[in-house]
């Protein structure tokens, strides 16, 4: 990469040359010098100061050095001979400590004073050190220069002698993951601690971040996302481990801090140059002092600071053009990222945060572990994320930089350059039409194009019908587009729309999604998105809550509830009202209460100035007008009187309404109140596809209105009639009689089994009434009553699930869990606005 031999050297006598002093012997400083030499080698008398005691090397190749794929000599850009050949004075290992702009001199640490006519600041950036206790311990390093690499290698070597060492990398960004990869290859047990839930969140979206995490874990790294470092633990002045905010401790022989960089602006700032985040420069890399230039990661240009290498080259060209008298101007850079971890193909460029007018095109191939997403806005490509197959990265990057109109190839854009440039093939239908009859369409089920076409000709007129008949696209769904093309080619306008899909993000219906979650053992939202080929990067407000429920229902005790996928009421455990306040309904088992509970409710109403209290239709009390920040305190007071959440806000068991039954009523046939309390104790806390109400009436007069509830019990002399599928809402529906049993225990068991059948089979947001209308009462009866095993098996699954559900969510919040959901960030007062 040496500068080419110079052809147009100025004929300036040496003593009259301008003195150019460069602060920084790194990639930017030396590249700027190379560019100047290439234009006019005799123009300047050049002195370069470097803090590191070595020649100029390629800093971004430190990762391969750490990984053992390259040696230091391989990454040297300019050897000593280059400095000598170009008559450059290199002052290495002696950093500049001050700039005096008045006398136009710089002073180095050793006391050396160097006068300049033009000064170039290329100090790069400093690693950001998080201010936690223990950050200064021996063994805490950054990943910036060769000395850092040497320290890591020493730790790995020491570890090998003791049977493997432990390394902790704080920061799951580009640099941190490359450090982790290198240390892993060097035989260390590596843990990556990342504050955000997604690795490399600046470059990747959630979907790609999840794939990357899964791959790194497969390689034996432990990846802790959403993990906040509290302190670095030391022993005898040396690092011994890392403690997280949640109390976890991870042993460590070395800790690498790679949480980010910030422009190194200290020198410029104390010299009085204009500095914001970086040193302010114009399009010719000139600072607020015309005699002082700046370039690289230390500068801020048109509001942007760069931490990648590509913009340096553009900046250095503009700088050299201007310094040599032919100003061209730098206009900022579009950047792209590749992760230098062997075997992982990952590319990202541009803006893929979505937003107005931006349209996502997503392609997933679960079998190959591929995720591709391009973002198109105003017919231009504005962003791309590729995982698993980055062959088209440079093509997308080129389209993006040039801002070319992509409307003509839009349909085929996601399939890459080869496909999109194929003329007629850019029409996906034409591409499918060109396939031979024995071409495989569905890899999962081994279905050829000929077979799919025959199936369609034999009467399968919709996607669902094709899936049901020949199984094409019924497994992972990645060939859905191909099957749809075949439908369109074979039938034209005759194609019938199939069953309702879960939402616009997928071609699968609810039943298929639930079946595939079970069959493929999918246990996380990003995994569902990837394996079922979701067409959006992170789902929408319709599918996220549905999938969260399906996962929760399928994997009780295993799946961790995702608060971000919850509707507000379920996230806040209270009912939002039109003014943004909440109402709170404590549970009253079977509608029973006592003086202690009533006093506690009265006290809460007064203490928190609740403007209204109302008796609900479900035999409870509803306290209105509570602010979100007061909710935990309200719950603490209610908890203290023995009350728990009433789940009046949830797709869950709401109330069990009862009448007084045989204990008081002259007509009562059984203890309906007691049974109601038992049913509520059994079912409370369970999440369901929709809200679920139960009632128990003590006689056929049915004072508890059991025949418009999801599950209703009507007591009779000889036992209990069990009713299902009632609804008192928009479409009033009386229950269907499911069966009659003779004991309380049987009634409880059938209730548990029915609830579980509904939980496992209904669609999200489908009440029991429309569910039964859809599947038919006979189906429900058959599923519950045909075999003697059905009720016990379903009831056992319900009871197993319930052991994870019956922790009072209010008690957790009152104890401080998820406090961030309730507290404001701060309050802004006028005084603060004036003075801060």
């Amino acid at each position, binding site marked *: 990469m040496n500068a080419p031999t110079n052809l147009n050297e100025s004929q300036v006598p040496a003593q009259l040359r301008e003195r150019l002093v460069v602060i920084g012997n790194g990639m930017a400083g030396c590249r700027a010098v190379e560019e100047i030499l290439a234009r006019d080698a005799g123009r300047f008398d050049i002195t370069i100061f470097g803090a590191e005691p070595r020649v100029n090397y390629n800093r971004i190749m430190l990762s391969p050095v750490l990984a053992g794929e390259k040696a230091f000599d391989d990454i040297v850009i300019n050897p000593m001979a280059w400095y000598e050949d170009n008559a450059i004075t290199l002052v290495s290992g002696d950093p500049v400590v001050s700039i005096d702009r008045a006398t136009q001199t710089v002073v180095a640490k050793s006391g050396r004073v160097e006068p300049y006519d033009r000064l170039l600041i290329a100090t790069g950036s400093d690693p950001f050190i998080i201010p936690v206790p223990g950050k200064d311990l021996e063994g805490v390093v950054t990943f910036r220069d060769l000395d850092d690499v040497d320290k890591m290698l020493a730790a790995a070597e020491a570890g090998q002698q003791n049977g493997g060492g432990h390394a902790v990398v704080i920061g799951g960004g580009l640099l941190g993951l490359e450090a982790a990869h290198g240390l892993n290859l060097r035989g260390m047990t590596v843990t990556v601690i990342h504050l955000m839930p997604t690795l490399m*969140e600046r470059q990747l*979206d959630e979907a790609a971040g999840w794939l990357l995490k899964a791959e790194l874990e497969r390689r034996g790294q432990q990846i802790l996302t959403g993990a906040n470092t509290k302190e670095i633990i030391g022993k005898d002045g040396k690092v011994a481990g890392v403690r997280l905010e949640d109390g976890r401790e991870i042993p460590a022989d070395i800790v690498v801090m790679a949480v980010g960089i910030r422009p190194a602006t200290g020198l410029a700032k104390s010299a009085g140059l204009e500095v914001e985040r970086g040193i302010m420069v114009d399009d010719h890399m000139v600072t607020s002092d015309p005699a002082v230039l700046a370039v690289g990661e230390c500068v801020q240009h048109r509001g942007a600071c760069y931490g990648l290498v590509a913009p340096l080259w553009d900046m250095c060209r503009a700088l050299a053009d201007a310094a040599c008298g032919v100003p061209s101007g730098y206009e900022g850079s579009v950047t792209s990222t590749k992760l230098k971890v062997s075997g992982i193909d990952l590319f990202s460029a541009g803006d893929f945060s979505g937003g107005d007018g931006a349209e*996502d095109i997503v392609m997933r191939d679960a079998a190959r572990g591929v995720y591709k997403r391009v973002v198109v806005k105003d017919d231009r490509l504005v962003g791309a994320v590729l995982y698993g197959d980055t062959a088209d990265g440079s093509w997308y990057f080129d389209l993006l930089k040039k801002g070319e109109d992509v409307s003509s190839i839009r349909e085929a854009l996601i399939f890459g350059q080869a496909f999109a440039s194929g003329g007629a093939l850019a029409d996906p239908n034409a591409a499918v039409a060109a396939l031979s009859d024995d071409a495989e369409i569905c890899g999962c089920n081994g279905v050829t194009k000929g077979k799919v076409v025959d199936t369609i000709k034999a009467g399968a007129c919709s996607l669902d019908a094709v899936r049901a008949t020949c199984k094409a696209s019924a497994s992972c769904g990645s060939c859905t587009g191909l099957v749809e093309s075949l439908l369109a080619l074979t039938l034209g306008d005759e194609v019938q729309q199939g069953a309702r899909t879960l939402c616009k993000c997928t071609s699968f219906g609810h039943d298929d999604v639930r079946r595939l979650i079970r069959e493929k053992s999918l246990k996380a939202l990003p995994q569902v998105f990837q394996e079922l080929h979701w067409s959006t990067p992170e789902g929408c407000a319709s599918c996220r809550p549905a999938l969260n429920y399906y996962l929760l229902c399928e994997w009780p005790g295993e799946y961790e509830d995702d608060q971000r996928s919850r509707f507000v009421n379920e996230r806040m455990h209270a009912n939002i009202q039109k*003014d943004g306040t909440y109402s709170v309904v404590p549970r009253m088992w079977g509608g029973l209460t006592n003086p202690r509970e009533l006093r506690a409710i009265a006290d809460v109403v007064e203490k928190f100035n609740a403007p209204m209290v109302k008796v609900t239709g479900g035999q409870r009390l509803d306290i209105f007008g509570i602010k979100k920040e007061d909710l935990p305190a309200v719950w603490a007071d209610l908890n203290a009187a023995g009350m728990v959440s009433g789940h009046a806000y949830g797709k869950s068991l709401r109330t069990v309404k009862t009448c007084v039954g045989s204990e008081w009523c002259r007509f009562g046939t059984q203890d309906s109140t007691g049974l109601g309390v038992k049913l509520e104790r059994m079912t409370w806390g369970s999440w369901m596809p929709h809200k679920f109400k139960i009632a128990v009436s003590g006689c056929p007069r049915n004072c508890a209105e059991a025949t418009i509830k999801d599950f209703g019990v009507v007591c009779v002399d000889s036992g209990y009639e069990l009713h299902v599928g009632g609804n008192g809402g928009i479409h009033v529906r009386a229950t269907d009689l499911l069966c009659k049993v003779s004991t309380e225990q049987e009634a409880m068991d059938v209730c548990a089994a029915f609830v579980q059948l509904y939980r496992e089979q209904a669609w999200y947001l489908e009440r029991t009434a429309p569910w039964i209308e859809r599947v038919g009462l006979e189906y429900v009866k058959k599923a519950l009553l045909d075999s003697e095993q059905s009720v016990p098996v379903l009831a056992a699954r319900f009871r197993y699930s319930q052991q994870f559900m019956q922790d009072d969510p209010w008690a957790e919040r009152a104890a401080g869990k998820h406090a*961030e*959901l309730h507290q404001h*960030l701060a309050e802004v007062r*006028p005084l*603060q*606005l004036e003075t801060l």
Partner: protein
Amino acid sequence: MIGDWLDIGPVDQIAPGTARTLPVRGGEEIAVFHTTHGEFFALVNKCPHKHGPLSQGIVHGTVVTCPLHSWNISLKTGEAQGEDKGCVPTIPLRVDAGRIYLLRSAVVGAKAPEPQAA
């Protein structure tokens, strides 16, 4: 620069994919959003439709779905998406060295639009 921008604290106080609120005495409460992609946005915490608290909605991409009637509001522009019409003011925001700053004049000056009739 310090004078124009109001420091409202570190970025890690808002988990990605969520929002938190900033009441302004004598002014409109502000919702500060953090997307799963790591971007931050600030809007007046009132849906242009019926003044629902946007901070309590589900965030997907750079859109929040209002908790009251499921209007989708762009975090970038404050505009209602799709068939719905309306716009809520946004507050210029920047992130610097791990802290969030709001444009001071916009914090005090923000006005919510009148709620829409049924």
